[in-house]
């Protein structure tokens, strides 16, 4: 009972913080910084979700942008193509009102997540038989195939991009609640997974697949599960991206995006949730910070050089497998308040 109350407390607290932060931020900082924050949140979500696959389960996927794209396009398709057909019989789905906007976004989010998860299942089932580099190549290939399929779908604009998509998130000034809410869910999910018996199976697959198999872990199932969950979260991020950006093109989901997400996971420390989170935020914000007159032209060179040097001098990433954990910090302060698991 105490445990449940504690959990509910955490959830309520999180929501409250998000709402307050959102109001403070939206009212006080400029639109540009909000959009940078939005991108930071999205990329952090993507990095943490890929960390589920690459870090926690030790697989090797470099085609994450494909699932991101599936989410974005499915979400966009709901809002722009399917919703107008349904809205006649269900007037509550009318956009422009508070309830309608949030309800639509929620439906888009569910659809996008489910479709991206299903795509993950389709991709994962055959390809997760492969290991290491070969798996990497196949995921890369699937990512590109997804992009090219979208490129050839005229109903969502093909190469011209899917514009406009109604801006559901920004309409009432609360994009950050949704985006960081999703981020909190992904982080909480990953963290709780690591603490659970299920999660130990994931870790076992990472550490030694053959040994895990011998111990009775159904490794294929674990790998596919991780893959599906990771893809589903990427899809959710895609839905929010589509509705914040109000327009998407297949080029936003090319190989480079996949590579950037992979880079975030590796730089943050493969397997470290907080590492992926921080790397996701840092690597999105850094190029924007470098967007001043002096470094403008050279920022991409500097970025890539730093990447290589970092890989050579600190191969395990910023945090390695470790986490920065607030609870441990709090516990050190005084052993109370936090329900100890």
């Amino acid at each position, binding site marked *: 009972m105490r445990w449940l109350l504690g959990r509910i407390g955490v959830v309520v607290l999180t929501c409250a913080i998000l709402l307050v932060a959102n109001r403070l931020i939206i009212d006080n900082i400029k639109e540009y910084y909000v959009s940078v924050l939005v991108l930071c949140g999205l990329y952090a979500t993507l990095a943490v979700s890929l960390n589920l696959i690459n870090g926690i389960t030790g697989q090797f996927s470099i085609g994450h942008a494909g699932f991101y794209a599936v989410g974005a396009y499915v979400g966009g398709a709901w809002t722009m193509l399917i919703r107008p057909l349904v809205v006649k019989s269900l007037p509550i789905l009318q956009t422009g009102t508070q309830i309608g906007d949030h309800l639509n976004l929620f439906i888009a989010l569910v659809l996008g997540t489910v479709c991206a998860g299903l795509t993950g299942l389709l991709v994962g089932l055959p390809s997760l038989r492969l290991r290491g580099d070969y798996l990497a190549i196949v995921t890369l290939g699937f990512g590109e195939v997804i992009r090219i399929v979208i490129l050839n779908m005229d109903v969502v604009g093909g190469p011209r991009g899917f514009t406009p998509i109604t801006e559901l998130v920004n309409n009432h000034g609360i994009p950050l609640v949704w985006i960081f809410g999703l981020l909190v869910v992904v982080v909480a999910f990953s963290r709780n997974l690591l603490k659970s018996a299920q999660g130990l199976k994931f870790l076992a697959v990472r550490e030694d697949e053959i040994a895990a198999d011998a111990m009775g872990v159904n490794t294929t199932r674990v790998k596919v599960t991780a893959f599906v969950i990771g893809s589903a979260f990427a899809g959710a991020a895609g839905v929010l991206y589509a509705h914040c950006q109000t327009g998407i093109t297949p080029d936003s989901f090319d190989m480079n995006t996949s*590579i950037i997400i992979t880079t975030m996971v590796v730089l943050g420390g493969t397997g470290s949730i907080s590492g992926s989170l921080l790397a996701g935020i840092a690597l999105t914000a850094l190029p924007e910070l470098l967007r001043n007159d002096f470094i403008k032209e050279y920022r991409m060179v500097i970025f890539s*050089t730093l990447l290589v040097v970092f890989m050579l001098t600190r191969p395990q990433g910023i945090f390695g497998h470790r986490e920065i954990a607030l609870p441990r910090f709090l516990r050190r302060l005084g052993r109370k308040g936090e329900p100890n698991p």
Partner: protein
Amino acid sequence: MQALVQTLIYGVETGAIYALIALGYTMVYGVLRLINFAHGDVYMIGAFVGFFACTQWLPFKDLSQHPEAAMLNVVLALVTLLLSMLICALLGITIERFAYRPLRNGFRNADAHFWGFVIALPVTAFAGAMTTTKRQGVFLFAGVVIGFIMRPVMAYLAKRIKPSGSRLNALITAIGVSLMLENGGINIFGADPKFIPDILPKRQFNLFGLVFDSSGLIILAIAAILMALLRYIVLYTRPGKAMRAISHDIDAAKLMGINTDRVISFTFALGASLAGAAGFMVAAFTNIKVVPLFGLQPGLKAFVAAVLGGAGNIPGATLGGLIMGVVESLVASKFPQWRDAVAFILLIVILLVRPAGLLGKNTAEKV
């Protein structure tokens, strides 16, 4: 029927180029189990060397004004071919020495020197570009000084580093090097497309109702010669034998007294020079635009070709390249918008049905 055969011929021409690039991927994969993502960018550098040689460094004559200079141009084109192979080989060795070797052997002092300078260079370059004065020398000097200051910093960082065996790290490093070359290329060469002028006379031949183009035939011939040469080196020379020994078992090769680092350098040099040759030939004989992202798509396709034939397998890469070229050409003639997808679909199917590739051997994993 005729149209089909014609399409096949175009496919073989494209395939020959893919094969040349794929050979570099496959050799490196063979010895290091590393996907050298920067290989496509070495191909790009080959094209740029060709561009500068043809327009600035060497006295090529404009054929439309001096038709009698054809012979001179042929000789110069051969020189350019060798030049781009040489420069690319050096680049390949550099990449291996300073980006991939530290991953294997740990970050040494020499690496600290090198990367210290590499970090200092763009910084001073932009400082130099910022100033209106002409004293670029001062900034070069400053760059050198900063480079020396960076050294102890890097060396301090390097002290605690152990070699990393992680494939993911190697892959990200390779991607980082690739990004460095692409973006460095954008800063140095500019992103605007460049074209190599016509340096050789072009003719079309009609044979059995099929059209053959002289430039396509030249590419095919040179590619065939280079591949034959490579085969000779790998099969019958000492470094070639050492390469095969390493790809079989690197630790055993070390125990047998093979200087593995040197042989790996040699492998990179070989692969990079083939890519350089391919880059120059494509840029000069098909006159497509030369841009810093020149190697991105061909690099990916060639990489797929290498996997298709069996990563680490040299005849496999040639076969994979040709298959890729032909299939792509067939698809492009009917469904051009699916051209890029077909490469990856082919790859996925092959890997799922026969993970070791067409010619690769399936090896059981040791526990």
